[in-house]
């Protein structure tokens, strides 16, 4: 998948209460959750997002609660990819299960600024900053998680095991 859009940069330790505050957890609907994405960081944050934009996070992105509503809210906002210095454990696993692409790039995250024009090849993990001309290679997806992705995600993986 090729994703081309604007970078929306956020800080370190973005927690899942920032991504989707608890008061919105009374639905499982992707669009409804997406409409309130990052509402715990800044009211009305999501208004800046266009379809296929990219979130750029710092260290430990997605820390805190296990709510799967967090990756769903990001997807529902129209953001298919999150690039970060590092991800919190539960969020990382949830992202994969939900089909949100998560690319870990360590300190290279400093090469992306808010508003940069970004192109991501999710298969190879190559991220191009078209504003600055810099290209970054993300760490590969762990092999076992790649197997789940190849099976079509955890739902499909489990469906095959149950069949």
């Amino acid at each position, binding site marked *: 998948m090729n994703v081309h859009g604007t970078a929306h940069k956020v800080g370190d330790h973005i927690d899942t209460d*920032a991504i989707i505050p608890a008061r919105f*957890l009374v639905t499982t609907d992707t669009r409804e959750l997406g409409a309130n994405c990052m509402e*715990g960081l800044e009211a009305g944050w999501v208004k800046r997002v266009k379809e296929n934009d990219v979130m750029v996070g710092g260290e430990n992105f997605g820390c*805190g609660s*296990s709510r799967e*509503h967090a990756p769903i809210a990001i997807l529902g906002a129209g953001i298919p990819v999150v690039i970060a210095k590092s991800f919190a454990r539960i969020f990382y696993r949830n992202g994969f299960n939900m089909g949100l692409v998560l690319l870990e790039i360590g300190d290279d995250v400093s090469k992306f600024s808010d508003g940069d024009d970004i192109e991501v090849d999710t298969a190879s993990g190559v991220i191009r900053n078209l504003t600055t001309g810099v290209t970054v290679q993300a760490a590969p997806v762990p092999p076992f998680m790649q197997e789940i992705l190849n099976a079509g995600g*955890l739902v499909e993986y489990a469906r095959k095991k149950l069949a």
Partner: protein
Amino acid sequence: MGRTLAEKILQKHTDQEVAGPGQIVQCRVSVVLANDITAPLAIKAFKAMGAKKVFDQEKVALVCDHFTPNKDIDSAEQVKVVRDFAEAMGVTHYYECGEVGVEHALLPEKGIVGPGDVVIGADSHTCTYGGLGAFATGMGSTDVGAAMALGETWFKVPPTIRVNLTGVPGPFVGAKDFVLNQIGRLGVAGALYKALEYGGEVVDAMSIEGRMTIANMAIEAGGKVGLFPVDGKTMEYARAAGYKGGEPMTADADAEYERVLDIDVTGMQPQVACPHLPDNVKPVDETAGLKIHQAVIGSCTNGRIEDMREAAAVLKGRKVNPKVRCIILPATPSIWKQCMREGLMEIFMDSGCIVGPPTCGPCLGGHMGILAGGERAISTTNRNFKGRMGSLQSEVFLSNPAVAAASAVAGEIINPAKL
């Protein structure tokens, strides 16, 4: 090579040979749980997987504790989804009405989880059961939905940080202070993807309730699990709760640790985590004098009987400041009853506290104690993220129950020793 507690427990639940950190293992799960927020998504995934029945009706726990008693129509609809599913699947451990408690206080108390178990829950504080020596960790709803159907899940074997607690704690200092201090040292990402394992003379002397308070906050350092050895106290607690399995278990003396952290608790002050991250930890005296509007005493971190006793000891014969809402939520019905038996309820009511039903409510800004802009709370809960308890312009300070109770009386954050 010796094994850590994490490796020992995982080995009991897999047919693979556990070789060490980084390895992926498929494990049988002892118990799978979800709550009223996360179960609806897990049920959605479960159905999408084509699953027709849960792997074991006795080993799935569904606890509607977050927005209950249902705060609005939407949350009532969510609970209805969970209730209908529990009934259709014949789930034994479904809790909603008068028997419901905060899940991580309720399951150990009912003997549903115990030493040596592998537990996964669609709730990040599932790690609480590490206090009983269970490898217990939070996951998302889809992973939990899959485990409800398959009875197994995958884990990456974590490296372990060993935390040794030594020394003699002073008055008003206990488990919550030790774990806040440790999170302050490690940082909120300091144990990312790792197991925390506890030992030392302070642990040996500590109650199971205290151990659960510490294990509960493993996730606040990014940890996968917070594990305690299984000793005589654990077995006694588990047996009294009606749990059948389990046996004493310690890490091997030659287990390999990624890091060893020694914390001498002698002379430690009560600790307070300041906004807006749990690692922003200071001795209470450095936060003293900050005016508060609300105090919350309860939650899966500090809503157990020992916590209630600690708060009551401070509140006895004193009055809560009239400008402070002091909300006390015993975490389960049996803790509630125990509070009545011991006369704690009378102390709470006489001092001007609001005593509510068991619920996660205010901890996550759900209901029953939400903060307005510009308000400040001291709370025995586990997270102080921006907006966690309400307005984005509110503040949450985390502390032990004695500090929260003393601050409610003083109207400002205070060291209980100076009340």
